[in-house]
C-alpha cells in the first residue's frame, strides 16, 4: 500500500494525460472520472479519434460490421464525461518539464502521464519483409492497407500460427482468397494449446479450405521488379507464388518513440506492481507495460490481451483516485478466442506441454468439434485450469472453482452449473461425466432436472 501523496501528483485541477486510447487507457480514464470530477483528462492517439475495439477489426474486413459498430461508446460519451480527445502522435516527452510534444499540434503539459501505447507487430528480420503487400495486422491503418492490397487477388500467405494469424486466414477466406498458412509448430498455436485442441483447430482450419502447412517457417520473400511481393520461400525450400503476405508472428510493445529518453525500458515500459515507472508521475499500462516482477504465479511479465489491459486500467484508475494505492493482483487467468467457427475458452493454468505434477483430463466429442479439458494438481487433486473448444463455459464458475482450489470430483459433480451453451443445445456434460467416471472409477452423477425445471427452462 502506498499513501496517495507518495503515489502521484495530487491537486484539484491536475491534468492527467493518457497516451493511447485503447482499452487500457480508456478504462483508466473512466475509472478516474468516477471518483475525480475535477481532474482534466486528455486522451491522445494517432490512430483514431475515438476508442474502437481492436479485437473487432477483422469483422470490418469481413463485412460483419462497419466502423461505427465497433466503437464501445457512442460519440457523445467523451464530452459528457469531459474527456479531451486529441488525434495526433506523441513524438517526444520532456519528463523534467512534464511536457509532451506532438506531431501536428502544440505541446501539452501534464501533471500525471499514463503510457498505454499498445503494441506493434513483430518483425522476423528476413529478406523481403518490406515489400509491397507484406504487412502485419494491428490497427486501422493496417486494415486500410490490407483492404487495398488484397483487392482482387487470388492467393495470400499468412505467417504465424497464433490468434492474429488465424484471424487473417478467416478474413481472407471470407473474400474467397485462397490462403496458405505457415505454422512453425507441430500444430496451431503450439505455445498455448495442448495437442488435442491444436489438432482440432488444424482440422477445422483445413475444413475452411486453408492450405495449412505445419512445422513450416518462412525463409524469405521475393518481390517483382516494381517492389511487389511475388513468392515466398519456406524453410523446406518450397516456393509459393502469392500476392499478399500477412505477418502474424506476434506483437511487441510499442515503445520505440520512448527509446533514448529517461524512461526505463526493456521490451516494454518497465513498471512495478503499482504501474509506476522509474519516473515519478509517469505510469504505464496495457500491452506496452512490462512488469519487473511477475505479477502472479504462472503469469507473464508482458500480457498483451484485452482483459489484462482493462484490469490494468481499472487498477491504476483506482489508485490515482484512492487514499491508498494497492498493488496489481490479477485473479484467475482467463481468455477466449474463436478459430473460425470453433469457440475456445480457457481458465486458470492449462500448459500446452506436459508439466511435472500437473495432470490432465480431456474429453472430445466424437464429431471432433467439441472438447473439454481440466488440469489438476497430481497430489491435492485441486483444479488448476480448464479449456473448452466448441462449448461455452461459465466464467464465474471456473473463477470460483480454481480460486478456491476445488477438488476435481467436486468440480465434476457440479459441472452442470458450468454449462453456458445456449438453450436447446446438446448438452455435453453427461458425456464428459461418463468419460470422467470411466477414467477415475468414480460414480458421480447429476440430479436429473424435474419436469417442472425442464418446463420452465430453469437449468439449476
Amino acid at each position, binding site marked *: 500500500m502506498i499513501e496517495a501523496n507518495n503515489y502521484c501528483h495530487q491537486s484539484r485541477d491536475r491534468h492527467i494525460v493518457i497516451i493511447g486510447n485503447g482499452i487500457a487507457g480508456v478504462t483508466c480514464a473512466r475509472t478516474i472520472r468516477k471518483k475525480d470530477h475535477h481532474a482534466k483528462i486528455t486522451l491522445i492517439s494517432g490512430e483514431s479519434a475515438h476508442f474502437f475495439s481492436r479485437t473487432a477489426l477483422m469483422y470490418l474486413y469481413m463485412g460483419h460490421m462497419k466502423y461505427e459498430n465497433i466503437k464501445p461508446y457512442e460519440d457523445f460519451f467523451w464530452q459528457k464525461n469531459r474527456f479531451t480527445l486529441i488525434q495526433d502522435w506523441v513524438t517526444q516527452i520532456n519528463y523534467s518539464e512534464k511536457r509532451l510534444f506532438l506531431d501536428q499540434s502544440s505541446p501539452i503539459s501534464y501533471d500525471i502521464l499514463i503510457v498505454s501505447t499498445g503494441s506493434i507487430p513483430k518483425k522476423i528480420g528476413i529478406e523481403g519483409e518490406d515489400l509491397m503487400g507484406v504487412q502485419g495486422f494491428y490497427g486501422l491503418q493496417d486494415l486500410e492497407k490490407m483492404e487495398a492490397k488484397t483487392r482482387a487477388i487470388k492467393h495470400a500467405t499468412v505467417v504465424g500460427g497464433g490468434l492474429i494469424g488465424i484471424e487473417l486466414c478467416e478474413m481472407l477466406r471470407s473474400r474467397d482468397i485462397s490462403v496458405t498458412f505457415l505454422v512453425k509448430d507441430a500444430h496451431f498455436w503450439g505455445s498455448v494449446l495442448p495437442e488435442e485442441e491444436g489438432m482440432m483447430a488444424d482440422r477445422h482450419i483445413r475444413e475452411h479450405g486453408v492450405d495449412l502447412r505445419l512445422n513450416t517457417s518462412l525463409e524469405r520473400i521475393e518481390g517483382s521488379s516494381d517492389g511487389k511481393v511475388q513468392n515466398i520461400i519456406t524453410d523446406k525450400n518450397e516456393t509459393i507464388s502469392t500476392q499478399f503476405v500477412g505477418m502474424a508472428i506476434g506483437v511487441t510493445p510499442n515503445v520505440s518513440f520512448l527509446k533514448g529518453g529517461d524512461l526505463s525500458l526493456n521490451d516494454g515500459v518497465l513498471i512495478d506492481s503499482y504501474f509506476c515507472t522509474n519516473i515519478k508521475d509517469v505510469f504505464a499500462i496495457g500491452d506496452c507495460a512490462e512488469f519487473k516482477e511477475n505479477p502472479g504465479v504462472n503469469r507473464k511479465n508482458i500480457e498483451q490481451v484485452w*482483459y489484462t489491459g482493462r484490469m490494468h486500467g481499472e487498477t491504476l484508475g483506482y489508485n490515482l483516485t484512492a487514499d491508498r494505492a494497492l498493488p496489481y493482483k490479477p485473479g484467475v487467468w482467463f481468455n477466449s478466442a474463436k478459430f*473460425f*467457427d470453433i469457440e475456445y*475458452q480457457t481458465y486458470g493454468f492449462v500448459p500446452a506441454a506436459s508439466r511435472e505434477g500437473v495432470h490432465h483430463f480431456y474429453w472430445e466429442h466424437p464429431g471432433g468439434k467439441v472438447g473439454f479439458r481440466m488440469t489438476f494438481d497430481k497430489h491435492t487433486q485441486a483444479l488448476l485450469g480448464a479449456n473448452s473448444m466448441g462449448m461455452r463455459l461459465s*466464467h*464465474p464458475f471456473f*473463477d470460483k472453482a480454481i480460486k478456491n482450489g476445488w477438488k476435481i470430483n467436486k468440480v465434476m459433480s457440479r459441472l452442470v452449473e458450468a454449462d453456458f451453451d445456449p*438453450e436447446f443445445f446438446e448438452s455435453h456434460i453427461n458425456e464428459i461425466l461418463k468419460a470422467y467416471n470411466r477414467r477415475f472409477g468414480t460414480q458421480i452423477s447429476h440430479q436429473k432436472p424435474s419436469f417442472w425445471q425442464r418446463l420452465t427452462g430453469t437449468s*439449476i
Partner: protein
Amino acid sequence: MKYLQYLGLALFVGGLVLFSLVPFIGEFTLSREIAQEKLKPEHSELLKQLSPMYGVTYPNQVAFVSDFNDYFNAYNEELKAEEKWDEVIYEDYAFSLTKASGHGPVQEYTVLFFVAALLLPILGALMYILPLHRKEPPGIKNDGIYFSSMKNRGWLGILTGAYLIAFYVILYWYAEYLTNLTVLVDGISKFLSGQPASQWFLYGLLYTLAILVMGIRMFRRYRGNPYQIIRTYSVMFFQLAFAFIIPEILVLLNMPWHDFKNIWPLDYDFFFDYRIEGMLGSGSLGMFMLVWGIILIILGVPLFTYFYGKRWYCSWVCGCGGLAETLGDPFRHLSDKSLKAWKIERYMVHGVLVFAVVMTGFTIWNYFSGFGLLGDATGMLHQWYGFLIGAAFAGVVGTGFYPFMGNRVWCRFGCPLAAYLGIVQRFKSRFRITTNGGQCISCGNCSTYCEMGIDVKWYAQRGQHIVRASCVGCGICSAVCPRGVLKLENKGEKGRINEHPIIIGNDSIKVEK
C-alpha cells in the same frame, strides 16, 4: 450449385415481375347482371347510376375504377346535397365490382398464371435458398453483409423497401387495383373457406408464404443453432395454422374469422362491437373465443412472460414477429442502436399502448352505456387508430421499412402488446441474458445484430446482465457473440438485475462499473 442458384434467382425475379404486372392484364366490363349480383338490395338505386358503364369494355382497371368512382361519387354527392344522409353509401363496391368485371388471360388461364406468378417465384426462392451454405461448416454467416446492396441500404434495398411500401399502400387503400391477383388465389380461398379471395386473403397467403420460405432460409443460415431452428419452426407453425388455416376454416363453418393467438392490444379491435357481437353470435365456440382472448390478456401474458420473458410471444408465436424473424432476418442489423433511438422508442411504444387502452376503454364504456354517449368520438378514435396504427404503422412502416430501419420497427416503436409484455418482462420475470463474467471484448457483434436496437455490448462489457423491456429474446446476440458471453435463460429472480456489476478476474480492487 451456383448456376442452380442463379436460375432460382432469375425465376424469382421473373415471377415477381409477372406478379406485379398481373393487375394490369386483361379488360374490364361491367354488366347489369354483375352489378345486380354484387350490390345489396338497398342500394339498387346505384344500378341506374352505373348504367352508362354497362357493356363498355375498359382496356385496364385504372380506367374502369376511375369511371366507377366518378359515377359512384357523383351519386353520393347528390345524396349529400339533398341531405339524404342515411342513403349515402359507405360500402366499398369498387373491389367487388372490379373483380367481377375482369376478363382476359388471367381469368381464362388462372392456373397458368398462378403457377407462373406465384409458384415459380417460390420455387425460384427455394432453389436459391436450399443450396445456401451447403459446403460450409455450421457457424455465423455474416460475411459481406455490410457490402451488400440489399442488406446495407444500397439501391437494391431501397428498391425493395419502395416496392413493399407501394404494395402495402395499394393493398390497404386501393385494393380495387389488385383484383386480378386475388383471382389467382380464389381457388385456394374457396377450398379453405368457401369464399372467393379478398385482398386480405391474398395478403394472408403471401404473408404465410414469406414466413415459410424465409423460414427455410433460417434453417440453412442458422444450421447448428437449435435455439434458432426450433424458434423458427414455432413461428412457421403458428402463422400457418393459427393465423392462416384455422381462421379460414372458421369462416367455412360460418364463424367469424378469428386468430386464436392474436392478443389485445395488438388485436386492437378485439373489443369493438362488431367483433364482440360476432363472437357472442357464434355459439359456444364464439364464447370460447371471447373468454380465451380475455384469459390471454389477463393471465396468459403475465404468466408466460414471468416464466419465459416476452420472447414466448414475440419471437415464438406472433405473426408480426414471425415475419420479422424470417423475411426480416437479412435486415436485423439496420436497427438504430443510439441512446436517442431508445428514448424515442419508449415514448412511442408506450404512447401507442395508452392510445389503445384509452380507445378500448371508450369502446367498452360505450358498449355498456348503449352507444348514446361518445358514440361519434369512439368511432373517430377507431378510425384514426385503424388508419394510423393498424394500417400505416403496423403495415406500411412495419414491413416496408425493413430495408431502411431493420426488421422490428413496428415491434419496437409501435406495438402496444410488446409494450405490455415489455413492462412485465422488465419488472416481473425470470428471463434475462446472463453476461459471462469478464469475457466480453466489446467487439460489438451483439449490438449490431440486435434487431431491437439494444446496445447489448454496453451491458456485456461492464459485466451486467441484460434486462430490457424491449428484448424479444431472439437469441441472435448470443449466437453471434464470438466469445460466448451471452446466455438467454430463465432463472430465479435473485441476482437478475445487477446494476452495479463488478467484473471478475481482477483481485486487486473491486470497482463498480
